[in-house]
């Protein structure tokens, strides 16, 4: 049952929110022991919230567009009085004294939070294997990863443990797990959704967005969580999106570009498997058959995205994560002096991947290397913005595979960081430019696992993206 169907049934009184939430909690109970999608299940709180929704309906009032819809929240979003861990030991015992703006907006729209989902520690990873609470498994094949870093949120929706969920996307952390789990995942334009209460990883890259089983549900959630927030100084002061209205417009007359450097072939980054290339090509052909014009478009600097990202994101992370020092939140390892206490706390509290990225970022920002690495990476961002702007003069949207491969087996890539990082090669450019991107399931690979196709557009092109995504969903095999 889609989120919109649930909301319609609850708003009309046809079905109670209490009944809906019980159904989802029962499924979590049956399935999550194996999947480990949730760090925390909020059974009591969800039942209370559902009862409040039902009382609103009984009183003849409208509980909102997502009435009674069970939602799962990535565990890097602050929830008042409820543990928020970032899947890290360093936040042990911490209960935020406030809600993230997205959490407030979902509740105000009648959605019911059923739990906090697992992630790669501090959202650093592409497989959800870097969690201090153990990996999440892919519900379609439990020997494979769900992708990451929002793997718990993707798995929860794919397994029907939540109707919708929220993730955060710094280099592909919504779109790649959506592709791996066969669901829809959207990273909105930077600044389109408030980051207030999202624990920061890379502040110039992070963006919150929804997972869902349909494009229409995705549009409905983004309408609720998007829009200006005075509590986030990077929030765009623009009208909220009207997305559900564009879903039936079709793609007649839309210009779609196949992004040459991220689609396999001679000028492309390496590593995109042939079955994934074929699915993306089939998606382009299907859009063409539906009335879009399709051409190949070149963005040469897209090949530099991975390198630039793995300098910019760790640099920002090393700065953001300096706040975790045993003084204000979570873990403290006692020591005779404050300096020793900070070092002992950080050493015990952070996992290996987080330490690796803090090290990399600290190095890239340190005297003597700043210009060669971080400074140059920032210039690559300028280059990319200019080249994408040129591309978007020729076409309305760009199309690529979401990830170079389908979901890989657990443990396959944990030994070598670079083999993990290349997962993000197709998704990273739009984080560096702040542009929106959506992953829509489009068939399966040779191994039977889902393939995601990504649609990219310029800043605030969400309506066009959803318009084309709705067609992709309809024609997908």
């Amino acid at each position, binding site marked *: 049952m889609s989120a919109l169907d649930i909301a319609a049934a609850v708003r009309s009184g046809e079905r109670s929110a209490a009944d809906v939430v019980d159904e989802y909690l029962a499924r979590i109970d049956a399935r999550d022991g194996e999947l480990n999608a949730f760090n925390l299940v909020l059974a009591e709180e969800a039942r209370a919230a559902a009862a409040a929704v039902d009382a609103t309906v009984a009183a003849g009032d409208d509980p909102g567009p997502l009435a009674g819809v069970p939602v799962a929240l990535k565990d890097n979003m602050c929830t008042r009085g409820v543990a928020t861990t970032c899947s890290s030991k360093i936040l042990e015992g911490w209960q935020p004294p406030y809600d993230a703006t997205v959490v407030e907006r979902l509740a105000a729209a009648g959605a019911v939070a059923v739990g906090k989902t697992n992630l790669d520690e501090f959202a650093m990873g592409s497989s959800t294997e870097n969690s201090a609470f153990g990996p999440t498994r892919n519900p379609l094949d439990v020997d494979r990863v769900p992708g990451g870093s929002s793997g718990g949120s993707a798995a929860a929706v794919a397994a029907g443990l939540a109707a919708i969920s929220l993730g955060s996307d710094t280099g592909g952390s919504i779109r790649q797990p959506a592709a791996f789990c066969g669901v829809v995942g959207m990273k909105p334009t930077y600044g389109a959704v408030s980051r207030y209460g999202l624990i920061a990883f890379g502040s110039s890259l992070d963006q919150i967005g929804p997972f869902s089983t349909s494009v229409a549900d995705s549009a409905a959630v983004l309408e609720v969580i998007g829009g200006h927030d005075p509590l986030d100084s990077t929030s765009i002061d623009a009208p909220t999106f009207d997305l559900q209205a564009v879903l039936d417009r079709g793609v007649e007359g839309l210009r779609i570009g196949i992004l040459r450097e991220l689609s396999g072939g001679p000028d492309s980054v390496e590593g995109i498997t042939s079955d994934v290339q074929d699915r993306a090509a089939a998606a382009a052909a299907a859009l063409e058959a539906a009335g879009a014009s399709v051409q190949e478009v070149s963005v040469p600097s897209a090949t530099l995205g991975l*390198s630039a990202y793995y300098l910019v994101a760790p640099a920002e992370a*090393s700065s953001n994560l300096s706040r975790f020092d045993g*003084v204000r939140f979570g873990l403290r390892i006692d020591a005779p002096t404050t300096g020793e206490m900070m070092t002992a706390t950080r050493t015990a509290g952070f996992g290996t991947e987080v330490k690796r990225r803090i090290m990399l970022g*600290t190095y890239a920002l340190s005297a003597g290397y700043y210009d060669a690495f971080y400074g140059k990476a920032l*210039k690559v961002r300028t280059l990319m913005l200019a080249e994408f702007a040129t591309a978007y003069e020729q076409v309305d949207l760009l199309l690529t595979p979401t990830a170079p491969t389908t979901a890989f087996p657990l443990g396959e890539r944990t030994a070598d960081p670079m083999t993990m990082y290349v997962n993000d090669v197709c998704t990273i450019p739009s984080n560096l430019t702040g*542009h929106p991107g959506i992953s829509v399931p489009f068939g399966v690979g040779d191994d039977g696992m889902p393939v995601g196709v990504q649609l990219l557009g310029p800043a605030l092109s969400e309506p066009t993206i959803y318009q084309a995504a709705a067609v992709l969903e309809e024609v997908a095999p």
Partner: protein
Amino acid sequence: MSERITRDEVIHVARLARLELTDAEIDEFTGQLGDILEHAADVEALDVGDIEPTSHPLPMSNVLRADVRRLSLERNEFLAQAPAAEAGQFRVPPILGEEP
């Protein structure tokens, strides 16, 4: 692949980041950070002299709000979440007598 970053540099960076690494971790990170920096050689080698850097995807300026009194979050709720607090402040071990 070798010598992109030395073992001594890794030890120095760990100190800057307030992390204590085991010998095995120092070895591992020296190799892995070297590999990542080797991959970044394409960025390092780029001739981007007169291009302006972009630190942020949006044109950023300071955002100000009207100077109106309003309720803020409760101080005590934040202090209650700290490992140690006293007299309305975060409490930490001594800071004097440390090496700089």
